């Protein structure tokens, strides 16, 4: 590479000022145009600052601790405790309710499974209501982790089903099929997540770290069961309706802009209780238990009933089963 000094100097003349050596960054010629440019740049910057000023809501709503919080799996027990305390304080401040955030671990050796008796389900929707209350869902919409499809008898094709039925149940020519997270053995949502904000726990429950999720909604596109929801707006829940028994990976009030999903009520089921939707079901259609326990009711159903899973051809291997009597 050769350098022609004469060329270089000619360029310096273009860029140089008339008064002695200056910092290279400052040697623009002073002229009316430069002054106008500076004024334009200042105006532009001011306009930009004004335009993005609503962003100041981020530091108002997101504390430094929250911003810097590490992934759930990288937190020590001590750090987790501090995170839970911070979240409890935030919930108190925002929702006016004292809550306890726990983090029960999976029970060693247990793998949870759920089965629904479609001969019994009559589409009354009590499960959805229970889910809404148990899991601190936004009250502005009737949100829950469960969708109940009203299906036309004679077809298992969901195209002939609807979730928006609004009449007395059960209808004579219909049957009812609740769909929630199938807690797949091979979950497409976990594969999709770019930041490992969602994963499968040892007891088969697929959970979300609501404080790590970036809200890209790729998992929502990936899920074949429409089991994932996005918090489009901050959840609004009256203080007296907030369920104070909360789990970090389950029913604590989710931050806006993050994904959520059914977690088999792990804050209950890992402590020996049943999922809220099961307790609420008046028909006895729902059955929950340990797939690893040969004597469990759910294993009896799997062995003695004609059982199927949804969209088996996709290879997702659900731990959620359907059967008819």
């Amino acid at each position, binding site marked *: 590479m050769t*350098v022609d000094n004469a060329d270089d100097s000619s360029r310096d*003349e*273009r*860029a140089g000022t008339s008064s002695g050596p200056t910092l290279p960054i400052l040697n623009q*010629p002073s002229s009316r145009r430069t002054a106008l440019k500076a004024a334009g740049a200042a105006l532009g910057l001011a306009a930009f600052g004004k335009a993005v000023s609503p962003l100041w809501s981020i530091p108002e709503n997101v504390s430094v601790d929250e911003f810097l919080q590490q992934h759930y799996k990288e937190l020590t027990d001590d750090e987790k405790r501090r995170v839970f305390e911070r979240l409890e304080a935030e919930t108190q401040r925002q929702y006016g309710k004292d809550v306890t955030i726990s983090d029960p671990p999976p029970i060693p050796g247990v793998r949870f499974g759920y089965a629904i008796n479609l001969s019994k389900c009559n589409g009354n929707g009590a499960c959805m209501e229970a889910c809404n209350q148990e899991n601190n869902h936004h009250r502005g919409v009737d949100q829950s982790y469960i969708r109940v499809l009203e299906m036309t008898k004679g077809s298992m094709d969901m195209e002939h089903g609807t979730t928006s039925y609004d009449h007395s149940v059960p209808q004579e020519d219909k049957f009812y099929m609740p769909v929630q997270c199938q807690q797949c053995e091979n979950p497409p949502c976990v594969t999709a997540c770019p930041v490992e904000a969602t994963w499968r726990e040892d007891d088969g429950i697929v959970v979300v770290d609501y404080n790590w999720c*970036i809200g*890209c*909604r790729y998992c929502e596109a990936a899920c074949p069961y429409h089991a994932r929801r996005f918090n489009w707006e901050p959840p609004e829940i009256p203080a007296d309706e907030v369920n104070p028994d909360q789990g970090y990976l389950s029913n604590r009030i989710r931050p806006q802009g993050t994904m959520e999903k059914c977690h088999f009520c792990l804050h209950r089921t890992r402590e020996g209780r049943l999922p809220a939707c099961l307790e609420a079901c008046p028909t006895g259609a729902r059955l929950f238990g340990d797939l690893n326990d040969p004597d469990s009711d759910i294993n009896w159903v799997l062995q003695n009933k004609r059982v199927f899973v949804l969209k088996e051809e996709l290879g997702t291997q659900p731990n959620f089963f359907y059967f008819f009597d």
Partner: protein
Amino acid sequence: MPSMTAQKQTSLASPDAIRSYPRFLWWGLGEATNGGLGFYVWMFVLTAISLVGANAWAHQVAEGMIVTNMTDHVSWGLYIANFTFCVGLAAGGVMMVIPAYLYDDEEMHKVVIIGEAVAIAAIVMSTLSVVVDLGRPDRFWHLIPLIGRVNWPVSMLTWDVIVLNGYLLINLHIVGYLLYMRYLGRKPNPKWYVPFVFLSIIWAISIHTVTAFLYCGLGGRPFWNTALLAPRFLASAFVSGPAFIILVMRILRLTTGYAAPPGPARTLIQIIRVAMTINLVMLASEIFTLFYTGGAHGASAQYLYFGSHGHYGLVPWIWTATAFNLVGTALFFMPAALERGSIRIAACLLCIAGIWIEKGMGLIIPGFIPSTLHEIVEYSPSLVEWKVTAGIWAFGFLLLTVLLKLIATVFTGDYEAGPIRGPSSGQ
């Protein structure tokens, strides 16, 4: 500039990169902000639209994604649609690089840097389109390797983040290096950029393939779950990219003294003719399979082309795209398209608009309709989404204008950089 004085400063004459690089940037800033009245009006309008977009996005961050019209049923909308198109635009620039470097097309070599500049602007637009789609942009750092926690190599989105940023860096290096050498009046050293040019060829194909894999890897979305998606993406990118570049060269000819020889545009049009034909053949094949087989695989296509259960939201979009693509292709095949003129311009505009719809609103949205539980919830973008998208385009054009301004300055006679000896000199 007339106001520039002519005093020699020996202290600045040294080729020391540490001193000359900031001067190069400062000079670039100066050049990028010099121009006539038309230039200032253009930049002012783009800045204004960008600011409207930035403001709309800031409101979206403050109030949440509820200000968009996306729902749990249609959870990706205009942003991701636009993202897909912009990735294609970025990849399409490679259709100048291949003739220039693989086939040693001398004339193409002179203008190939325009394709690389378009790629930079398009990648920035793609990245911005993803950022504005995030529900929690404050957690963006979770996506950064080593600092965050990336799900690599399993998640296709992680791959996409990596390849898009890689492509941006490669093209920034190539364009930046060539401009800097021009600024110094030095001959660019092929060792410092030609390997990156060849890397960029493979990389360009990878960015659009990975972007297609984002969608076609999802078993739960039958409309996307087709092996034809990546080849279709590439074929349509090799139409929209070259068509966009032809328009850019035309505008450069009208606004600056930077006149490209007629050869490159003709080569690009030959490429478009082939790529668009392949694209339409693949599209026809896809449509045949969807409609002849029917069933669940055809439900989205049914909704897209003819409406379904009383919902017709995308029907006007897709038929507009179909008409634009067919008419645009027919125009490209007219002999007049090889000459400068309105036929060529119209063909480029029609195909760009047609492909923008076809792989944006016509591909992303119907993937969600009907939903995985066969519910039909329609989607049309909200005002905020339109503003943000317009802002992203305006910012992309702003960036492209600045890059092209610098390119036009150093690559035309206006710039007295001394004897230029590079193989890509054009002199």
